């Protein structure tokens, strides 16, 4: 278990490095130099020079990469080119919004997804099951930003039930909750579909397994069989997908936050990209990568804890 944990963490660190190198490559592959793009056609060469220096783009590439990683390790992600504020502060300010959005979206997805999945198992092969199958596939297929726009139109513009923009008043939980409903629903819908399908398949597979027959043959109560023998096995793939799902939820947040003009990591990255504010882009992407990998690694370790077979296949 320990060697497995060390391996997983080592792999995660390697991925962070590769992602950041790829980010640097992209900065250099963007046509035109970042400074003149940021300043527009009226920029003087002196201004450009100054901006390049501020973004650290005047130094050789390897020095830039080295400095970035060296500073990142100490928690320094650089400064906003325009406002001169530390990037870490900016992230700290908006990240709770994104996390809250993601957590609410994940909760909606889990409750609705597992609920619909179980419903499909109970009514297996019946009309409800078929309707749910069509519904789930539709949910999976429609991108979250499309759903976001329609939710905005119907529930915020036409019906006026929920606010159209923002994250609610600071300190006022009621208004924050009202503001999170639509964006969270927009993100969650895809995952409701996924989880409903997955839970259905996973439960059906387990319910017909031989070991449940054994448990029945020893006269265990049906409640004990479902709760202890079936669910423990059926939940394993759900945990696996939820971890990956959290990453995907965070990436949908980038679009959905923009649609709802909601402060968060997504809006931070989008606006920084538009303004060619590279330190902010690099810092936020590094932060998100690290956060995502932490979640996935923790989920992998949890999986190994839940399913001894995973633990063993990955031990050697």
């Amino acid at each position, binding site marked *: 278990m320990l060697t497995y944990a060390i391996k997983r963490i080592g792999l995660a660190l390697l991925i962070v490095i590769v992602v950041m190198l790829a980010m640097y490559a992209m900065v250099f592959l963007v046509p035109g130099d970042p400074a003149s793009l940021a300043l527009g056609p009226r920029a003087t060469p002196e201004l450009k020079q100054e901006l390049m220096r501020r973004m650290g783009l005047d130094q050789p590439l390897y020095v830039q990469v080295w400095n970035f990683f060296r500073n990142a390790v100490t928690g320094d992600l650089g400064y906003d080119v325009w406002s001169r504020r530390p990037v870490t502060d900016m992230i700290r300010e908006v990240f709770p919004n994104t996390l809250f959005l993601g957590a609410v979206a994940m909760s909606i997805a889990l409750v609705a997804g597992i609920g619909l999945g179980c419903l499909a198992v109970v009514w297996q092969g019946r009309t409800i099951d078929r309707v749910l199958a069509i519904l789930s596939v539709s949910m999976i297929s429609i991108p979250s930003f499309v759903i976001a726009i329609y939710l905005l139109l119907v529930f915020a513009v036409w019906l006026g039930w929920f606010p159209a923009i923002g994250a609610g008043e600071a300190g006022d939980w009621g208004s924050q909750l009202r503001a999170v409903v639509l964006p969270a629903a927009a993100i969650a819908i895809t995952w409701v579909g996924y989880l409903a399908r997955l839970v259905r398949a996973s439960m059906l597979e387990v319910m017909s397994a*031989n070991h449940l027959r054994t448990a029945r043959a020893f*006269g265990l*109560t049906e409640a*004990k069989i479902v709760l202890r023998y079936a669910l423990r096995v059926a939940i394993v793939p759900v945990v696996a997908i939820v971890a990956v799902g959290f990453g995907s939820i965070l990436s949908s947040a980038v679009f959905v936050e923009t649609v709802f003009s909601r402060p968060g990591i997504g809006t931070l990255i989008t606006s920084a990209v538009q303004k060619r504010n590279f330190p902010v882009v690099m810092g936020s992407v590094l932060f998100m990568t690290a956060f995502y990998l932490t979640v996935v690694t923790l989920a992998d370790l949890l999986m190994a804890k839940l399913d001894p077979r995973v633990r*063993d296949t990955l031990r050697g």
Partner: protein
Amino acid sequence: MSETLLKVDDLSIAYASEQGALQALRHASLEARAGEAIGIVGESGCGKSTLASAMINLLASNARVTSGGVIFGGRDILSVSGEEKRRLRGRHIAMIFQDPMTSFNPVLTIGEQLVDFQDQREGLSKGEKRAEAAAMLKRVGIPDPERCLSRFVHELSGGMRQRAAIAAALLMTPEVLVADEPTTALDVTMEAQIIHLLRELRRDYNGAIVIVTHHLGLVGELCDRVYVMYAGEVVEEGSTEEVYHNPRHPYTQALIACDPAHLHDHAPVLPTIPGRLPDLVTPPMGCSFAGRCARATGHCRSVAPAHVEVSPRHFARCHFAQRNEARS
């Protein structure tokens, strides 16, 4: 003669299928007595697994009892309430499963499961149940029972798994022990060891053992009486000795002739029984084996043969049973 513990009486079971009701078991009867081991043999699809499921009262949800029943403790266990059915299982009638790899839960340790399997036992603490389990594992020849209890099923070898499955079935000293293909998942050496173990256990076990298998050798080694099944019917029954040496039903004769263990060395071609099982949705009017029998006549095809007693307690369901002396 010892007491009859479990009696299958004229039992017929049909499965609902898209083509119609599949008559998997037709008017099967058998008796399992205390201290006796009986064998049920036949090829795949002959209804032996359905019969085994009926005996442990664990029929599939699409199975329907169309006649007869399974009598245990003076009543038909197939018609008691769900809760009573549950109480009979494991405590009074236990089963050794076919494939121990998939028969144990993959995410619970063997110990956790062996403790859970004793749920029906009252007045024992968890620790005592675990100690019982360890003692039983020791008895079935697992050298380090404590270690085995803390393991998951995939961490055990095939032989260990089968031993653990046997230990599980014996945990509550059930009156009837049903073993469904107890050696099929094992290689030859393991199989020999398990047969040896079952034989040893038989000596101090007072209940009835029912062994369901396609393996004639296993029945020959372990069983006092044998029931040969074909297309959902018991076609021949008698003492193992008698049936193996003087089979009276053409199917039994063919089955014994096809058993590789009985072949002379270097037989150029393995003998087979030509033809295939009749359609069980619409079973044949006459003898169910007529389609594959070399001796079948028009009479065989139109009139179902009776279960004839050819010698004391030796029955065969064939019109020619009296004349079918062993050929070799």
